[in-house]
Each structure stands twice: as C-alpha cells, then as structure tokens.
C-alpha cells in the first residue's frame, strides 16, 4: 500500500483515490462470497436537494457519505467540518462558490437536530 501511494504521488491526486478505492473494493470482494458483498453507496441513497450529487462526489474521495449524513449540524458547524477536512485531512480546498453549494446542501439535508431527549443516555431499546 505504501508503495502504491508513493508511486501514485507522481499522478494526479485523484488518481490515487481512485486506485485506493478500487483496491479496497478488490480486497472486500476477494474475501467475500459474491452474494454477501456489503454494498457501497450512491447519491440517491441520501436526501434529495440541490447540489446533492456534487456534494456527494466532493465528500466521498476519502470516506463514505454515510459518515457525513450521520451528522446533524448548522451551517457554521458544517463550514468548520470542511475547514477540518482541508486543514487536517489534506482535502483540496473547494473554490468559494463550490463551498457555498456544498454548504447549502449539507445544511438543508442534515440540519442541526432538535434533540428528542435532553439529558444524555437513552435506553438502547427505547422507541
């Protein structure tokens, strides 16, 4: 893997992502019987809204969109999240207009939630 990454450093960065994702898939496919393959995701799995597909592809180079969709945050918090991806995780900074589009979608699709329960722990089987 390290070798792969080093070799790929000469290629456009996105190529690295593509190769790595393919390799991950290959590994998972290698160990799994065909019928038992957990499936990865598509934009259609997530709430509809303007800029959904672009946001999906901007945020899925390193991890699945499920990691994004399980958050519930306001625009400022989403903006901080993107800043973290750029400053700490090496995401190429999106251009301002694109960042706004991404934020529009994230804020609308995964808003800060009104918590159903105040006060910490809820029983695992409640509902």
């Amino acid at each position, binding site marked *: 893997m390290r070798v792969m990454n080093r070799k790929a450093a000469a290629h456009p*960065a996105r190529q690295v992502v593509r190769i790595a994702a393919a390799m991950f*898939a290959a590994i998972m496919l290698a160990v799994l019987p065909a*019928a038992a393959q*957990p499936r990865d995701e598509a934009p259609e799995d997530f709430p509809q809204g303007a800029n959904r597909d672009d946001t999906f592809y*901007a945020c899925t180079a*390193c991890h699945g969109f499920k990691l994004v969709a399980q958050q*519930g945050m306001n625009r400022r918090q989403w903006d901080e999240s993107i800043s973290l991806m750029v400053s700490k995780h090496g995401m190429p900074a999106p251009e301002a207009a694109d960042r706004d589009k991404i934020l529009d979608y994230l804020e609308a699709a995964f808003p800060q939630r009104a918590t159903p329960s105040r006060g910490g722990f809820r029983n*695992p089987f409640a509902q």
Partner: protein
Amino acid sequence: MAGFKLGRDSERARDAVQDTSQSQGDFGEESLTASRRGFLGGAGLAALGLATGGALPLLGDTAEAAPLNLPPALPQGVRQNAILDALPGKKPLIKLSYRPPNYETPIEYFRTAITPTDAFFVRYHLSDIPEIDPKTWKIDVGGEGAAGTLQIGLDDLKAMPAVEVVAVNQCSGNRRGLFDPHVPGVEWGYGAMGCARWKGARLKDVLAKAGIKKEAIEVVLSGADGPPFDKTPDFIKSIPVWKAMEDTTLIAYEMNGAPLPHLNGAPARIIVPGWTGTYWMKHINSIKAVTTPDKNFWMAGAYRIPLGKFPLVARFVSQETAVNTPITEMVVNSLISSHADGAKVKSGTPVGGIAWDGGYGIQTVEMSFDGGKSWMPAKLGEDLGRYAFRTFSLPVKGKGKITVMARATNAIGQTQTAKLIHNPPGYHHNVIQSVSLTVA
C-alpha cells in the same frame, strides 16, 4: 494543489465510488424503505428467551441488510441509514460506515464477559486497508530512543514468551451519538466496544531486543492501513514508555483462542489494557522508541480531552498542553443488556449487564428499581481480571412500570456520572443508564 472545481473532480470521485460498488442490488432502496420493522419487532428480548442466555436467534449469518431501530437520541442521519450488515467473517453488525468500515456490536452480544470475535466491533479511520501475507509481514522496531533496530515476523513473535490478558477494547467515542448537543464524528451508539482474551508477546520484550535508551519517552505505533489520498495524515499513535513497559501491554496475534481476524488487526495488533482503543494499533508494522513527543495529527490534533474534567489517574505527561491531554484510560461504566426498554418481566427475574473501567477493577455495581431513589448491590459474575467486562445481575423487584438503573464503582472509588460531561470530541460517555420495565 490549488482549489478544485466540483465538476471535474466529481467525475473522478464518481469513478472511485463506482469502483467500490460492483455488486448488484439496491442498498438505497432498503435504507430508505419507509415502513420498516424494527429488528426487535417490538418484542422484548426477554419474550424471545434471550435473557436466559440462549442463542441469539435474531441475527442470522446472512449478509442481507436488515433494518433496525435505534434510540431516538441518535442523530437522524444515523437512524435513517443504519442497517445490520455483515463484513467478511463477521455476524451482521450495525453499520455506521462502509468506507472505511465502522461497524458496532448490537447490545445482545453484551450479556457475557467475553464478546464473540465474529460480533466484535470494527473501527478504521482510513480506508486503504491492505491485504497482508502473514508469512512475509514484519514489524520494524527502532527509533532514536532505541539502541538498535530489528525486524520481527509472526514466527519470531510466537517464539517469545506468550502472555494472555482479558481486556476491554473500547473506542474513545463509544456513545458519541448520544451527546447532546451533537458533536461530529462517527455517531456510535453503545456497541463500539468488546472484551476478548488476547494472546501475544509483551511489547517490552520486543523493545528490549532493540535496546531501549533511558532518554526514550514515547513509543510510536503505526500499522499497515493508510489513507487513500496521500495528503491525508497516516494513522499513527504513541504511548508513554511507562505504559509500553507494562506486563500486559502486548503485541497480540490471537483473539479468543484463534488468530486475529483481519478486520480486528491481523497479523498482530497492540493491546493497551485499560486505555481506549485509539492506542490499540492494528496491522502493526512499525514500533519506534522516541526521545521527543510525537507531533503527528492523530496525537497533537485528535483524541484529546480537556484537562481536569474527568477523574482520571493515568497521565500522558509528555503530550499534555496547558489546556488538554491525550485521552488515556477508560472511565468506569456499565450497560444494562439483559432486557429491552419497555419489556415485561416477572418479579424476581434477573436483570443485569456488564461493567468495566480503566483497569482498577470493578468493585461494586449497584442497581435501582425505583428510578434512583434506593440502590442495592448487584451480584457480580465471574472475575476475568481487572481489565475485563464484569457481568452483574439482580432479581427485579417492584410492580408495574419501574425504572431500572445501574451504577458501577471501581476499586479506587470512581463511579459513573449522573450528568453528561460534555467535551468537543465526544469521548468518555458514562452517564448512568435507565431502562423502564413492566413487572408482573
């Protein structure tokens, strides 16, 4: 690299995504199904005979995605998309993300002190997870804090004195999804933890082979998994030398009597009993003694807790700042796992679960059947050592609808908190739990 435009890079990311989704079928439809049955089907576990310690009929070996109900306190995005899904060699677990794989253990598996290997949770930060040939795999041991360097393979490790320890491996962020207000991260419920019998060589014996210098302050650990994108920092952690030298800090190659499964760190991983899972490096391939504090992102920029907020003993002094410290040992905690909330039980039925802490050992677990007004000591189960889950139970008392609570205390007098201790990364959730039961 300069800024990227959505269109162009989207194309490429799209390719990457398509490469990972080669199977047919439509995960989307399943996850979005409006009318879904809870995986408990509304029936209490007791009604299904689970509380008596029988097999778990709910979870088959099928990899078919099954919908499930999760607590309302979890973020909507978790509840909307959560499904049970089986990774290679695993029972269906609760999927938080597939790339990288983050899967938690359903609560039914926490009725015993040992968590079955095939139900043990899976956590990765970075999605480039290599296949490893155990025959050619080697750990590089060295660093400026070591007198020499060496390479050590699986057979070398197995030839060294073997140590076994039963220890809880819990993600620092277990129960993060229950934080209110929300904190970003993997939104775990209760199952980002497990307890196993680990077998391996002592880390200190391996370090002794390289010769550790007295100036060494930390031991830096790195594994074979890495980022899919080379500008993303690799996952690297360090532990203080004193912790590395403890007799129970291991390079483990066995889990519950069998070779480590790949997704839990094969061929070998680091075991740091008492400390949160972040230090338990999987697929370990580099161990370096160093004389200055490690500064990489995963030490300096993540896994930190505010100073002074938690009642912890173990310190990681070389990494402390004026405001925060790396997370170290686990806080004392318990989980009621015998019954579903709302279950109907006969008076006198044993109700209980598991308790654990950062390695001082569980002293008592008290239970309340009246919402915390009065407390009684529960009966503790077998003692598998101070780093293990300890089971507890008590025959339920009362009539009608009652609130059951459990509160664990460890050997140094630490106990669970009544009110969440908020912290930005969402660590150390050990709020006292309450479950309502109807006693007939």
